[in-house]
């Protein structure tokens, strides 16, 4: 069997977007902006929550620091200094956040930032609500490993939320809104899982149709999430490691 035989079926997995790390080093300003926007979209919530929780900053200060951090990332070309062989992008960014907040403290600065530099809508009010919904006891997270864990969990939440949003848009574009509602009802909502039978009765469809719809939605969700993740990684090895971490394949 030749290698080509293994490509069969794989063509349904679309080519990935360019990594933000590569794009950030591009000479094309538009490309660099796009990279920062992609990075910001995936990481601003974890960064904001991390600053709020780890650095115990009030909401307005954390908002400024979050925006300031991404601007500094752009101005000081920090992404160009990232080496995928040495660490994960996620860990690198968290260390950069720590360093940034610490430096801001030392300099005694507090700038009001904002404007359209980031090209990403930062819904801090929603992030604040989420922080309330995931109330944490600081005493439970005392070690640096736990800080990493907290940041990772928020990063996964952000990544999956973006993928769900993309999936919703895909369903709308393909006129499969009902599929998204089923996916939402079964996989995203409710504390207790309802049965396929109950859900199919509720929507007036057969269990087989429901099964197929959910299988399609999950497959697309997985594809989109991995595609977004690949964009946020600097190498194939990092992508594989991060995919295992994001999907919990290391712990199952």
């Amino acid at each position, binding site marked *: *069997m030749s*290698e080509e*035989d*293994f*490509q*069969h*079926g*794989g063509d*349904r*997995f679309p080519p990935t977007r360019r990594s933000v790390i590569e794009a950030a080093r591009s000479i094309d300003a538009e490309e660099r902006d796009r990279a920062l926007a992609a990075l910001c979209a995936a990481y601003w919530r974890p960064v904001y929550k991390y600053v709020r929780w780890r650095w115990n900053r009030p909401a307005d200060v954390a908002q400024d620091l979050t925006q300031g951090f991404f601007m500094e990332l752009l101005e000081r070309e920090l992404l160009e200094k990232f080496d995928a062989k040495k660490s994960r992008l996620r860990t690198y960014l968290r260390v950069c956040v720590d360093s940034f907040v610490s430096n801001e403290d030392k300099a005694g600065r507090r700038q009001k930032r904002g404007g359209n530099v980031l090209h990403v809508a930062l*819904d801090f009010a*929603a992030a604040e*609500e*989420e922080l309330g*919904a*995931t109330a944490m006891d600081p005493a439970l997270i005392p070690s640096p490993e736990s800080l990493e864990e907290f940041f990772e969990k928020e990063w*996964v*939440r952000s990544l*999956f*939320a*973006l993928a*769900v*949003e993309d999936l919703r848009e895909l369903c709308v574009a393909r006129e499969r809104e009902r599929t998204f509602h089923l996916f939402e009802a*079964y*996989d*995203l*909502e409710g*504390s207790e*899982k309802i049965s396929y039978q109950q859900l199919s009765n509720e929507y007036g469809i057969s269990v087989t149709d429901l099964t197929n719809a*959910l*299988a399609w939605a*999950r*497959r697309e*969700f*997985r*594809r989109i*999430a*991995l595609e977004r993740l690949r964009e946020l990684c600097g190498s*194939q*090895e990092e*992508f*594989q*490691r991060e*995919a*295992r971490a994001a*999907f*919990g*394949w290391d712990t*199952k």
Partner: protein
Amino acid sequence: MKFLSDKALERLRDGAEMPDLAGTRYRLLERVARGGMGVVYAAEDGKLRRRVALKVLDVPGTDGDLANRLIREARVLAALEHPGIVPVHDVGTLADGRVFYTMKFVEGNRLDKYIESVASFPDRLRIFLRICDAVAFAHARGVLHRDLKPANIMVGPFGEVLVMDWGLAKILRGEVSNGARDADPEATVFEKPKPTSIAGDATELSVVTGHGTVMGTPGYMSPEQARGDVEHLDTRSDIYALGALLRFLLTGQPEIASAPGGRRLDKSLAAICAKSTAAAPAERYPSVQEMALDVSRYLDGLAVGAHRESIFDKAGRFYRRYRFFILLIAAYLTMRAAILLFMHR
């Protein structure tokens, strides 16, 4: 953007893990186990109407080390047709971009569970000899297993013994199919081991480095394998693992128990274990066949090559081997002596 609760994250993870079998002849039945590279599911082959085991990689893509390893594992298995090695049926890529292969669905127990119901040493040794047969066959075809341990041996309902999980196999020379050899990313498979903090039973888990590269299992890994000395690995590395496996079958531990109170081994069996797990490869058995021969000789009550016997050892072995006749003669002589004593009264 929708906020996802912790529960929703878990559900999304669970849902995303399921392989997409659309367009294949297989229907998913249940999740069986997770390995270093991916998950094994029970599936039904729609065409042949039989149950198969479907091993699927976690991440999509046909390039990269993991995909290469899974494809290579399938090809190695395909090249090793032996009753003691699980046969592979099919290999390909799923609609979601993940590489998979299907193999015989082995119903039975893992060796460590199975031997809980096998009390006698001879029976355990016979199982061990069947494992040796499969490994010797692979060696003859130029393939090292490199991760032999109880969790990778299955015993079927009719006592058939199957060596599983050839994901770490190393191809020594060109006796297997070219495809399997070409796909061998030898330069990237091994890395020097890093300290790991694997919780739980270390004998259950293969060591995985930060790069997701499986290397072997503590307790069953030869010293040269633990050092990452890839260049110098040969069949004696598997012989080390077989020695640890033999010790596990006999004492419940792959290594010599440091704590007192462990089960004492017969000197000959202890010598076989010690010889096969010698730190220096040159001091081990040169081949699996020779190791198996020693175990067979022990089963037949003969002297084993690994142990130089004293006169008492020889007498003890002679007694064990001919116990029935010795006891018969002793009973006869006792009876004769008793009759003579009675007649002379």
